């Protein structure tokens, strides 16, 4: 314990922030990119560019594909294409908990080349692609972020006096601290909201006492009751014929008073199979969780969920606020920019720690605790952007027919990040790590539209602008904007290194 309350809070802010800072940076980068996960999904499927998704979703094709893959699956799911992502997505949930996913051409039902897509970043930000364990790790990081935010507010004595203060020319620790304070204080409402709602989404997993007491630990039954979802026992008899899902869409839309977004068939090989439809979450802040259920053998209407209670609506509101499916592209851009501010807050916060101890790091060398923090800063903050760009490049360069193409893209992401992190940590000894990684990222970013032009005749910037597919064009344009930003950072990094060396020599 420290001598005073403020000192204790400063200690808490420093260590709660530093311990999970790198992880939070990964979560924030993933979450920020996931604001446009569907647009990135669409960009990463060039086979569908230039096509238009049918107005009424056709789910039968997706179910037919699922049947060829896993006729005895636990459930088949399909997501209709939308203006954000035109692919018809088919999912198969197997009894062992694994899932098979495939994007289909919404006009023909034919599978298109696989990709990790923007969904890769979405999954990365909530479970690090590590399933339940990853979800708990991310949850812990979110909770520590809330602790660090509250402690940060308490120790910031000049919060109002320094509200607009940013002194980048002051250099070193002062400049990093100002950057950290400005993005932290001005972005505080967003940071608090996103950390709190992010943790709240998985509240049933983090605070399971109530479910253990009332439902004997049966999470599925809890959610089923909370959302009034329909489920019926398997009979063990085979299903003779699956009723057409497409013929039920109009009735489902009439009952829900909303467009159908997804369809599912639970235990599709059993005579008790149930067809369910749900709608989109983009019309209001809370998720619209209503569902209608039909008998899969004859299409008979079975059940419609009742309007949610206050508790479930509150939960849906918090989840909806986090996932920003409402508000259109304007709000997604606002979240994206605030997410970037969050990344800057985290990166500058970790650099404050390093800048404050620059002398000690120089004395202790790279092979010390101080050196490790410095190296991890470069490896994570400098390496991850390069890995993200490499995913986009891999999407265009890997052969379309490659088996497990999505997995190969993810492998490229991880491999590039490992190499970049190793390089950055090694070069941090000479102070060149930041500048070199930023320069490499800038070059890789410039390469994206160039590779796009040379490999995808229907997907390059001129083609997408010509067809008025502005969401696709925006990906290339944003990549170029980021290229300029990283080139600028690389130049700043070179100058900063010279200044720091001079400071250390004088000191």
């Amino acid at each position, binding site marked *: 314990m420290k001598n005073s309350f403020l000192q204790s809070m400063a200690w808490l802010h420093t260590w709660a922030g530093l311990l999970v800072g790198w992880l939070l940076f990964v979560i924030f980068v993933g979450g920020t990119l996931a604001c446009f996960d569907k647009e990135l999904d669409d960009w990463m499927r060039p086979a569908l560019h230039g096509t238009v998704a049918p107005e009424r979703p056709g789910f039968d094709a997706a179910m037919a594909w699922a049947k060829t893959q896993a006729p005895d699956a636990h459930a088949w799911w399909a997501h209709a294409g939308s203006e954000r992502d035109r692919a018809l997505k088919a999912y198969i949930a197997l009894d062992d908990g694994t899932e098979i996913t495939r994007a289909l051409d919404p006009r023909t039902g034919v599978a298109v080349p696989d990709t990790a897509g923007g969904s890769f970043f979405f999954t990365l930000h909530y479970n690090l692609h590590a399933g339940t364990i990853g979800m708990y790790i991310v949850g812990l990081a979110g909770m520590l972020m809330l602790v660090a935010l509250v402690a940060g507010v308490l120790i910031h004595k000049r919060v109002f*006096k320094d*509200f*607009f*203060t*940013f*002194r*980048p020319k002051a250099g070193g620790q002062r400049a990093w601290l100002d950057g950290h304070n*400005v*993005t932290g204080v*001005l*972005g505080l*409402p*967003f940071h608090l*909201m996103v950390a709190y709602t992010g943790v709240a989404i998985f509240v049933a997993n983090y605070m399971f006492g109530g479910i253990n007491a009332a439902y004997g630990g049966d999470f599925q039954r809890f959610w089923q009751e909370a959302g009034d979802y329909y489920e019926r026992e398997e009979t063990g008899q085979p299903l003779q014929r699956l009723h057409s899902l497409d013929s039920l869409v109009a009735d489902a839309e009439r009952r829900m008073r909303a467009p159908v977004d997804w369809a599912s068939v639970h235990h599709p090989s059993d005579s008790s199979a149930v067809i369910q439809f749900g709608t989109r979450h983009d019309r*209001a*802040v809370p998720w619209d969780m209503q569902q209608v259920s039909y008998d899969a053998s004859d299409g008979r209407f079975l059940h419609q969920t009742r309007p949610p209670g206050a508790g479930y609506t509150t939960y849906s*509101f918090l989840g909806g*606020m986090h996932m920003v499916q*409402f*508000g259109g592209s*304007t*709000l997604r851009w*606002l*979240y994206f*920019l*605030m997410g970037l*501010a969050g990344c800057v807050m985290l990166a500058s916060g970790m650099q404050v720690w390093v800048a404050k101890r620059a002398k000690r790091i120089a004395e202790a060398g790279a092979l010390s605790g101080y050196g490790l923090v410095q190296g991890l800063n470069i490896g994570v903050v400098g390496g991850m952007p390069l890995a993200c760009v490499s995913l986009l490049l891999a999407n265009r360069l890997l052969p379309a027919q490659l088996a497990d193409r999505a997995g190969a893209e993810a492998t490229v992401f991880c491999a590039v990040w490992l190499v970049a992190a190793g390089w950055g940590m090694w070069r941090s000894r000479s102070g060149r790590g930041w500048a070199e990684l930023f320069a490499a990222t800038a070059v890789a970013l410039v390469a994206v539209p160039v590779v796009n032009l040379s490999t995808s005749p229907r997907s390059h910037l001129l083609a997408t602008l010509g067809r008025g597919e502005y969401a696709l064009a925006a990906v290339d344009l944003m990549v170029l904007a980021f290229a300029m930003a990283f080139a600028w950072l690389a130049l700043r990094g070179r100058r900063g290194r010279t200044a720091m060396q001079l400071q250390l020599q004088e000191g």
Partner: protein
Amino acid sequence: MAVGIALALVAWPLFALAMRKHQPALLVRELPRPVPPLLRLVGWGLLGASLFAFATAKGASQGTIFWGATLVLTAIVWVLLLTFLPHRAVTAMLGLGLVALVVLQ
């Protein structure tokens, strides 16, 4: 929504003008004593009016979220202008407000 953004863009410079710390960079001389509290009051009023504009355009729940997001980002824009273009920051912010009104209306 354009009105809400424009009002937020105008409100932040008023708060900065009310702070003695920023007055040398933004103005030729310090403001007379009764002016800063008045500027602060008008700033709060504009932020409130901005919330009202967003709530009118987008409804109470979505409007509040749009408003919060706009406040964060317009404040960051203001800090960047204040840092890199201090003498033209107020004019630039008013210009951005005008652009928001014309382009987004």
